[in-house]
Each structure stands twice: as C-alpha cells, then as structure tokens.
C-alpha cells in the first residue's frame, strides 16, 4: 500500500466549490491585421486555392480512350496521370517517394523557419482564413462581431448569420466538388454531377468534403490545430533554438506598461501592453508568453505590433521572426548569432537531394513499355509426338503511352527455336508481329519448340521484342525446360 494520502476523512476542511477541470472554448474574434505578412498570407491563400481549383482543368493530350487531364488519379483504370508521367500500381513507390520528399521538405523548412507550413500553406489555415474573411464581410471586424454576438436576435443579426453560413456552405461544397475532379474526367463529372448521373462515390466524397470543410474551417478552426492535429507535436520536435520563429523580443519589450505621449522611454521596455498582438491572433494566444504549441506562426501579430510601433515612434520588430539564441544573446548584451546552416539542416537537405535524384533518375530512365514473360509451370515442358520439346509462355506487354505499338518477336540463344503465338500468323518474312494497344496490357500465349537433339546444356534463351516504328528493343532472358538427358 502506498503512503500517499490525498484524502483526510477525519475532520475534513470545508470543501472548496467544485470547479470544472475542462474549460469551455472561448470564442475567438481575430481582428484584421494590415502589413507585409498579412499581404503575404493573402497571396499564399490565392496561390493555394488557385492551384487546388484550377489544376483539374489543365489538359494534357493523351490519345484515345483516356481523358486528356493533366493530373488525374484514375482509380477505375488503376492509373495515375501527372502531366507527362503515367504511374501504374506497380510503380506506387514514386508516390511513396513523393510523400517522403514532402515530409523531408517539411522537416527542412521547419528547422530553418519554424512552422511556416502551419502559418501559410496548411489547408486548415487557408480555408479558415477564407472563412474568417467571409465572416468579416457579413459581421464586420472584431469589435462589431463581439457586439453582434452579445445582441439579442433581430432581423439584422439573423440575415448576417444566415448569409455567412450560406456562403460558408457554398465554399464547402466547391471544395468537396473540386476534390472529386481529381479522380474523374473533370469535364465529364462536372456535367453529370448536377443531373444525377455521376458515380455514387462522387456524391459521397463531395458530401464528406463539404461537411468536413464546413465543420473544420467554419466551426472548429483553431481547435483543429490545438487538439486534432499531430503536426504541432512533430514540428515542435523539429524546430530548435536556431530556427526562425515568430518571437516576442522580451529583451526589448520588458518591462512592459502603458505609455503616455511625451514620457521618457528610459528604464522601460517598448511593449505598451496594447494587446493588439493578442487581438489579431487566430489562435487566441499571447505571443508574449513565448513559443507555445497553439502558435501557428502566421506572423499576423508582427503586422499588428509593427503598426503600433510606427504610431508610437519606436523601431518596428518588437515581435519578429527571430531565434531563441539571438534573443538570449541580446538579453545578455552580446551580438546575436544566427546559424541557419547546421548539421540538421544540412542532413535534411542532403537526404532530400539524394531521394530527389534517385526519383528523377528513375523517372527519366523508366520506359513506357514493359515486357513480362511468364513461363508455364504446369506442365513445365511438353514432348511432342516427333520428340520435339515445347515450352509454353504468357507474354504480358504493358504499354504506358498513348500510342499503339507493333512489336516484332524473335528468339535467340538456343538453336532451332520455333515460335508460335495463338491467334497470330507470321508475316511474309516469317516474323510474328504483336500489336499492343495504347494505355493497356496485352496478353499473348507463346509456345517455343525445339528439336530434341538441339537441347544441350544451355536452358536459357532471349526473347527480343522490337518496336517496328521506334526501333526500341526489349530483351528478356527466360528459361527453357527440357527432360534431363
């Protein structure tokens, strides 16, 4: 038994009033900031949304039978199109490589500039920002919104709230609708969606994304980052004292306090405790408390603070992108040091370059044509009535391009090989031509026979497939089974 005693039954002191251990969410009313980072954020939003909504409409000529869509995840056809690249399921490692590159890129950027992903590029940030913009359009800025929420219901309040939610839902639907464009021919799905003829899965996923967009960006907002998202935890481990983070320079700001015009600035910090940095924060935090999990490093507090600094005639940059070491150096009277090039940034960079090179090499050297020779195992060989030995094969010809091909088939490496392909006759020169359709797999049954006396020690031969138009040659070594002599 432990000796820990939390409870003293005898002579209990008066119980304190029970308190909630789990506090309720405090509604956040972010104020509109003005400045270079706000401008950068608008620009980032425009780029992200532009990419998301426009990419499915980019065209790329692909030939007959396949949509001319530049970026398309064709699950039904089990193919992934990315501009000139056509990825088949057996090449899914390219997608894995892309994921690894993205993760490493995130590591690198985080170790250099802190959580810029969270602040500018994360879909949650982008859509929440868009939703707050809509909210502001209907209900006004921070002060007006607080007032409106305190007011009793009226026609004015009702139409503002309803209007906001309608626009939110519209954006949510456009988000879900654009998502499905990546998985089907965009034009086809856009036409059939509204007349009820699109595949059921299209409606299902459009519905799911409409709901999640509305719920996450409209109603949950900063709670997603604080409670749901794993990235803040991971990114917290990736940034260190040398990473550029949105930082309150306490060496300059403290001690803080209100300041009257004309008063001396001696013996006090530059922070006048105006709380503008808190009011613009979409996460509802006070950056002056130091780096914290909730902070998405969107830098809107920098804009707000710089505004005030200009007004009170103090140098800007009381809150700025800075490193912990630099602030500590200044606080102790030393010259700040910046170390962006460090072992960890070098490591991330080198590994990224390595993986990118391997992928680029693979992509540049990968053929759009593949030959698979599958040897029959049952029976391993057949002895014909005249004693000849025959082996059966299945040829799988994979064509990952938009052009139909015609391949000539020859065998080398053993004497007296006779080829026969089911359903095909050799041409006038005695050569078998295999037609291969565009964007597809063609199968052929091949039998290879050889006189018994020609079977010597060697039991391998080469199948040569030559593209009659391009001269491209594919050589496959395969085995030949014969009875043991």
């Amino acid at each position: 038994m432990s000796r820990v005693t939390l409870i003293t039954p005898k002579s209990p002191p008066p119980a304190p009033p029970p308190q909630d251990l789990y506090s309720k969410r405090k509604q956040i009313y972010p104020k509109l900031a003005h400045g270079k980072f706000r401008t950068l954020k608008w620009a980032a939003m425009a780029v992200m949304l532009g990419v998301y909504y426009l990419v499915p409409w980019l065209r790329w000529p692909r030939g007959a039978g396949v949509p001319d869509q530049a970026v398309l995840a064709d699950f039904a056809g089990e193919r992934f199109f990315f501009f000139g690249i056509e990825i088949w399921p057996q090449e899914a490692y390219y997608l894995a490589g892309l994921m690894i590159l993205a993760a490493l890129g995130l590591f690198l950027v985080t170790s250099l500039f802190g959580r810029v992903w969270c602040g500018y590029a994360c879909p949650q940030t982008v859509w929440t920002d868009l939703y707050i913009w809509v909210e502001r359009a209907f209900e006004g800025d921070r002060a007006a919104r607080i007032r409106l929420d305190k007011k009793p219901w009226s026609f004015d309040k009702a139409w503002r709230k309803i209007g906001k939610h309608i626009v939110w839902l519209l954006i949510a639907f456009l988000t879900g609708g654009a998502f499905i464009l990546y998985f089907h021919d965009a034009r086809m799905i856009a036409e059939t969606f509204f007349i009820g003829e699109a595949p059921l899965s299209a409606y299902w996923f459009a519905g799911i994304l409409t709901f999640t967009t509305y719920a996450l960006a409209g109603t949950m907002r900063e709670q997603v980052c604080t409670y749901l998202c794993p990235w803040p935890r991971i990114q917290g481990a990736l940034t260190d004292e040398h990473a550029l983070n949105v930082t309150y320079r306490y060496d300059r700001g403290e001690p803080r306090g209100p300041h009257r015009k004309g008063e001396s600035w001696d013996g006090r910090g530059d922070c006048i405790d105006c709380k503008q940095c808190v009011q613009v924060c979409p996460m509802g935090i006070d950056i002056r408390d130091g780096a914290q999990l909730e902070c998405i490093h969107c830098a809107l507090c920098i804009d707000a603070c710089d505004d005030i600094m200009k007004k009170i005639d103090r140098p800007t940059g009381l809150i700025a992108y800075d490193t912990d070491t630099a602030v500590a150096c200044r606080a102790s009277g030393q010259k700040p040091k910046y170390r962006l090039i460090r072992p960890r940034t070098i490591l991330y960079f080198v590994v990224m370059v390595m993986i990118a090179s391997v992928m680029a090499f693979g992509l540049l050297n990968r053929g759009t044509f593949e030959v698979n020779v599958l040897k029959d195992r049952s029976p391993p060989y057949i002895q014909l009535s005249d004693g000849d030995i025959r082996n059966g094969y299945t040829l799988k010809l994979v064509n990952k391009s938009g052009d139909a091909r015609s391949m000539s088939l020859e065998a080398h490496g053993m004497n007296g090989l006779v080829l026969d392909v089911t359903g095909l006759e050799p041409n006038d020169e005695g050569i078998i031509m295999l037609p291969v359709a565009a964007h597809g797999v063609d199968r052929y049954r091949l039998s290879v026979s050889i006189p018994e006396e020609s079977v010597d020690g060697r039991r391998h031969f080469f199948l040569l497939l030559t593209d009659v138009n391009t001269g491209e040659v594919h050589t496959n070594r395969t085995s030949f089974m014969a009875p043991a002599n």
Partner: protein
Amino acid sequence: MSEQEKEIDQHTGVETTGHAWDGIKELNNPLPRWWLYIWYATIAFSIVYMVIMPAIPALPGLGTNTRGIGDHSDRVSVAEQIDAMRTERMQAGQALVAASLEEIETDRSLQQFAMAAGESAFGDNCATCHGAGGTGAKGYPRLADDVWLWSGTLDGIEYTLRHGIRHDEDPDTRFSQMPAFGRDRLLSSQQIDDVVNHVLLISGQDVHDVRSAQRGADLFAAQCATCHGEDGTGDRSVGAPNLTDRDWLFGGSEEEIYTTVYNARNAHMPAWEGRLDDATIKALAVYVHSLGVGE
C-alpha cells in the same frame, strides 16, 4: 461504503467511490457526456435495427428467426447478385456465341475474353482429369501437346467438348471400341507378345525378339490395321491412336502395351453440352486449342 460516511475529496469537492488502489482513491465523476450520448445512440440504433432487420434467432413458438419489417435475407440477396452477375456474363458471352471459333481466335478482344473465361472454366471442369494447364495423366490425354486422338481443330475440339467420348447418353458422342484380344480369347498370349513386339518396333523402341516382331507384323496387318492403319499411324475418324509416335495414353512399355492389347482400353469423357452454356464451351474450345498450339 453505504454505511460509512461519504468521503468528499477536498481538492475537487467531488465524492469518492470508495475504491482505492495503492492509496489513490477514485472520484465519482459522471461519465463524459459525449460518451454517454454515443452509448444512448447505439441503444436506439440497436432497437431500430432489431425491428427492421432479422435479428433474433429461433423464438419459442415461431420456430425460426424474426424476419424484421424489411424482410431482408442475405441468402436471397446473394442469389440475386449471382443472377445479376450471370446475366452480365451472358451478355459478354453473347459475343462469343455469335462469333465463329476462328473469329474468336483471331479477334484480339474476343480472344482475350475467351482465353480468360476458358482458363477458369478449364480449372473448374477439366483440370480434375486433364491436369492444370492440360498436362494430362495416364488414361487422360495430355491437351498441351500436338497429339490428338480424334481431332485437334477448333471445331473438332468443340465437338468433343459437346458430345464427349464414349458418353452413352449422347447419341452423337465420339465412339469406337478396341477389342479385348486376350480376355476375349481372340489371340493367344504368344500372339499378343508378337503384336506387342511389332508395336515396339514401329514406335522406335528396343526389341529383344526380332523374330517375334516379324510374326507380329502379320498379326497386326490382320487384326489391328483396320483401325490403327497398316503402318500403325492410327485413324482419327475412330480415335485410333498413332502407335509410331512417342506419345502413349496408357503407357508405352512392353508390359503396358501387353495389358492394353489383352484387356483393351476405352477411356470415357462426359458430354458437356447442357452442363455448360454455349459461350463457355466455345471459350473452352479456344483455350484448349491454344494449349495444344492449334491444329
């Protein structure tokens, strides 16, 4: 606990349950509300589910399970799905039924469809005797070689598939019968030995007793040539095997050939018409034809 005084934890002001582990006591907090609501929702769902779906097995007096207002049955829906699949496959099979066997074999898309359908039908119906990939076995012809007892053409294979070999219920079946020369006392043991030696000779095998083989030549001409041909190369029209090649359905050793002549061997194959649909039979014909590389 009930007789004792209620304990109130002084830090939170919450009553304890009286349970203590290593001196740490459990607070009697209510269940989380969201959790409770989900629990209520599952109860409500289960009641609705019980009403709509078959849920309770074998009620006393009812004999069987409750039906539910939806009258849903997995068995019925599976049967429906199978029917739907059949109909779908029939539609694809229509193309095979409409085309001739030669057209199927030379048309790329028809061929690929027929080969896939034929392969799976072969695995289900034929591989038991003829082996996977048509390897054959003693008494069951190998289909992957160039030896055909009756016919190796597309049409010939289709005919064999439809009507079978020595399948008595089908009047159109392929039929022939080899006499049991020994058992029915048509030839003596010595004479059978002679014939066997002759057959060994014409099939290119070693013969110990050349004189016996010479005697056997006359017997062969008199008794066997009607069906197997004077030179022993066989006759497709009656399914008489070629005796001069290396292929033996029941074995080519002296002993095996002796047994064959003494007892006669007449293998059977069932007729598949009526058991498999037209499209499947045609797909099988194309597949088997390709196994033997065609004739």
